[in-house]
């Protein structure tokens, strides 16, 4: 019952418009620096990379470091020239890759 990433972007836009995109994914973002109650290091487990593509072309990407808080939230903009699909990818330290897609109609 993994939580689905949240995506917020307009369903429609005008050609050449700069749109705002917001994403949120559920993740503990364990830094690898904390200790548990027995004094043992809690192993690092973070989302280390996030990318956004539009119709297969890169739009935005970021390497994420342990300082980023739990449930990483991204807000960025993109200029859209044609209708198509945004595809978002989150890469976990353990190799898990989570993806989400959303379409936009450009007129």
């Amino acid at each position, binding site marked *: *019952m993994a*939580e*689905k990433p*949240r*995506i*917020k972007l307009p369903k429609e836009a005008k050609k050449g418009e700069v749109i705002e995109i*917001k*994403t*949120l994914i*559920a993740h*503990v973002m364990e830094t690898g620096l904390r200790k548990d*109650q027995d004094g043992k290091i809690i192993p690092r487990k973070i989302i280390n990379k996030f990318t956004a593509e539009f119709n297969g072309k890169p739009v935005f990407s970021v390497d994420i470091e342990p300082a980023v808080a*739990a*449930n990483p*939230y991204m807000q960025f903009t993109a200029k859209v020239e044609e209708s198509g699909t945004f595809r978002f990818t989150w890469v976990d330290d353990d190799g898990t890759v989570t993806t989400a897609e959303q379409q936009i109609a450009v007129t």
Partner: protein
Amino acid sequence: MRPALTVALGVLVALTLPIVPTPSAAQQAAQANGPAPLASGDAAPSPWERYTGWPARDTSNFNTLANPKASPPSPTEPKKLAGPVTGDAANGQKLVADRTRGGSCLACHIMGPAGNADLPGNVGPDLSEIGNAGREDEWLWNYVNDPRVYNPATIMPPWGSHQLFSETEVNDIVAFLKTLKSPAVFKTEVDNPARRHTPVEKRDNLDATTNPAMWAVDKGEELYNKREASSGQACASCHGDAATRFKTWAAGMPRWEPRLDKVLGVEEFVFRHAKATTGANWLMESDENIAMAVYLRNLADGQPMQVDVTSSGAREAAERGRALMEVKVGALNFSCRDCHDPQRGGLKWIRGQWLGEAKGQLDHFPTWRTSLNQIWDIRRRFEWCNVAIWANELPPDAKEYGDLELYLASLSVGKKLSVPGIRH
């Protein structure tokens, strides 16, 4: 005597609590099908164990909401001192700002240079010039040790009587108080509680990219439709379309339940009803229970809260809840009202934290806690209030918490549900 007293209380409640005449449509429909089956027994893990990461201190020698007779009795007379107080003023200055001693003095008082005047509270008077007040050493000593000997209505903790400070430490604090002769100098404007900005919550709690607790709404919906292996039944098997069926239901909770002789909130009701019908074992404070509570309250978002505090049983429960607000609990010896009534500590600063008032708080629970990355229902909030003032918490399904929740809900009547909330 007994019946007369009950009638008198009833009149009092009827006069002072909001009156709610009609049950909601959903409640009427539920009643038409007969009372909802409810499982008896514990609704929370038993024996109850405190949450991981919470202070482990055992304060069972002090009052709890269930046992208001555990704390040592208040002394009746000030202690006579043989001579002037001699103590280590430098150590006293450290002690008054020691956050490990239940927040210590600076939580409520500005005290000159103590703690570098870093975010002192303003529940109590500014003591920065107490050294000029001409107070006897004995008066100062007894006031710190146990202020109830001079003012039985005080909300100040009995620091010495409840062994938060030893007699030597009280000496040191008094020695420091005597040095306080000029107004505090604040490094920044917001260190002065009179100039600090009142916190305002402006985030859109129902925006899924803002509030991670919105994932619990998804999870609750899944659980609502999930068939339990043992019975083959889901909530949806009997209740059908949740959005229609539960459009108002949660706004009428908590509710007095005569069969169990206690008040049930959404969380406890969900456990007992699911256990008795689908067989799901959604104990209170489990992820499933919280998700269902968030989901069911979310379905009633925008509906004005209206709870029954007038029918037989409900009226008495709400009155017990009101009385519980005055019970002094914990080593710090605070009642709910001491901190949350604007006539006392409410709407003031306790160190850097703002104390909200009791009324109008129940519209947004369960709520996301951004500082903790957790969803807290109202019962966990009650438990933290208890532990934070050095009182042992009760299990989430405690009858006292039910009474308290009903009374507090009655102070939120008319507010529109907005769940999940989001708070620091």
